[in-house]
């Protein structure tokens, strides 16, 4: 499949597909982070995670419309506000859902699967009723539209660089939160032994609610980033939830580094192969590679070396 390209072309193709893959990587990392901390802490598989992401995308869409119509003066900076609002909206909805639904089902993992799946259907229909079934696009400010000409053949899109920078910031912030803050210590204690965490004085219910909100909020930011690579529709989130599960499992649950590494390898493989093959063949090859590796390493890429 490489036959018809010269070596220089191939280099440029790999570089550009690599950068295109990095936006996908950013969305995957943000989605997987949220899913992984929710699953790690509460054992809840959030089937509605994609819908929380789409909530973030719709918030971004609303912001773009609002700023264009009413505050065109600060339109160039609206994306920052949109991301923050996406985080807050998705996070708040997450906390409400945890309070109303999830906390009653902690001891019944299968039921949480069903309940969050039902929630995803409800949210999809809500989006359809509110925003219509048609997919919507977001107007980007002009400074994010162009690209940096790295060499004659390699162009790097500015919005891609922007999304990656945001992703790196958020990942570092989450890592800092989990490993250096008091709240993070409580989260990790609850993750490892819920009963004992309560018995040393940690309010596990409160930690659960905050964590669920945090995970969903990050999904909202992922939705904001997503508006740059796809158009937003009521069911767009569904396309991402399966890939995100794959990343969490492949990376090894409860390992932040593993999640990042697996998101990177999967998105890069996917993006590079997509150029040479059709999208679905690329997906098949990616999946086969993941299955093969998981057969050799069922625990995922990264695990903690510690006696349990």
């Amino acid at each position, binding site marked *: 499949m490489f036959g018809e390209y010269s070596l220089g072309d191939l280099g440029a193709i790999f570089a550009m597909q690599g950068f295109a893959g990095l936006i996908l990587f950013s969305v995957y990392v943000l989605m997987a982070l949220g899913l992984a901390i929710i699953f790690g802490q509460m054992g809840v598989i959030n089937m509605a995670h994609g819908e929380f992401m789409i909530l973030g995308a719709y918030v971004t869409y609303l912001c773009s419309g609002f700023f264009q119509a009413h505050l065109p003066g600060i339109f160039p900076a609206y994306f920052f506000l949109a991301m923050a609002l996406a985080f807050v909206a998705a996070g708040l909805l997450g906390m409400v859902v945890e309070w109303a639904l999830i906390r009653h089902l902690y001891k019944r993992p299968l039921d949480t699967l069903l309940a969050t799946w039902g929630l995803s259907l409800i949210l999809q229909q809500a989006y359809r009723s509110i925003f219509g079934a048609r997919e919507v696009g977001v107007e980007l400010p002009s400074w994010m539209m162009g690209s940096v000409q790295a060499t004659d053949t390699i162009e790097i899109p500015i919005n891609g660089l922007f999304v990656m920078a945001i992703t790196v910031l958020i990942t570092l912030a989450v890592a800092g939160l989990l490993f250096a803050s*008091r709240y993070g210590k409580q989260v*990790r*204690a609850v993750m490892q032994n819920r*009963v004992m965490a*309560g018995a*040393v*004085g*940690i*309010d596990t219910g409160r930690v659960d609610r905050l964590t669920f909100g945090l995970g969903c909020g990050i999904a909202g930011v992922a939705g904001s980033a997503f508006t740059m690579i796809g158009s937003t529709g009521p069911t767009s989130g569904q396309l991402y939830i399966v890939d995100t599960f794959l990343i969490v499992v492949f990376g090894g649950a409860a390992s932040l580094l593993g999640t990042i590494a697996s998101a990177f390898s999967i998105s890069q493989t996917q993006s590079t192969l997509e150029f040479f093959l059709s999208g679905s063949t690329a997906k098949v090859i990616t999946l086969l590679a993941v299955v093969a590796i998981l057969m050799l390493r069922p625990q995922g890429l990264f695990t903690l070396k510690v006696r349990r």
Partner: protein
Amino acid sequence: MLQTVPASAPVAAPGAAPMLAVTDLHAAYGQSEVLHGIDLTVAPGEIVAVMGRNGMGKSTLMRTLMGILPARGGTIRVDGHDVTALKSHQRVARGLAYVPQGRMIFSAMTVQENIETGLTVTGESKVPGDLYAMFPVLLEMKGRRGGNLSGGQQQQLAIARALASRPKVLLLDEPTEGIQPSIIREMGRTLKKIRDERGLSIVVSEQVLSFALDIADRVLVIENGSIVHEDLRADVDEATVARYLSV
């Protein structure tokens, strides 16, 4: 069963309010009741050993006191406050602390982080120096993951974590289980030192009679979910208690 001593005999100085007062405590796993009305009072600074064979309700008593298992009936008071309806973490804030059977330290977290989890209710952010002074080995290992410590070190860590919340009553569930004899003796000394320095009350469940006699001011025997025998340390007839413990 017939040798039950009336549980009302006060042990501390007359008039001292009990630090832990349990009356008619019932607890059950599902439909099967495991504790059938436990009465227990512990004076400030007293060490009480709850003895009994496996399956007699020692751990269930501890778990119920800690709020891990809900009480079916009866009341639990800590320093005069009724904690029966509170969740575990609220009981910790009221002054209970728990060292569970099997120690249950957070194995993927460092020694220091493990102790810091105990600081949640006090609001402190640094491990108090006196804890490390009491367990110097933990200071040496503070950067290691808890799961990579030996059994005896994990036990010390679990005790330090419990003490970090500055409890009034410390509950220890079979602390000698799986620990070598020389370390058991040292642990007995440590527990008495903790009591003397901090003036807290200790309830320890045990199967090892020598350890219980070594540290306790009072020995209770639990059998089939009821307290069937009670003696002050000075009056303990080893043979009688040993008969309850023999299989």
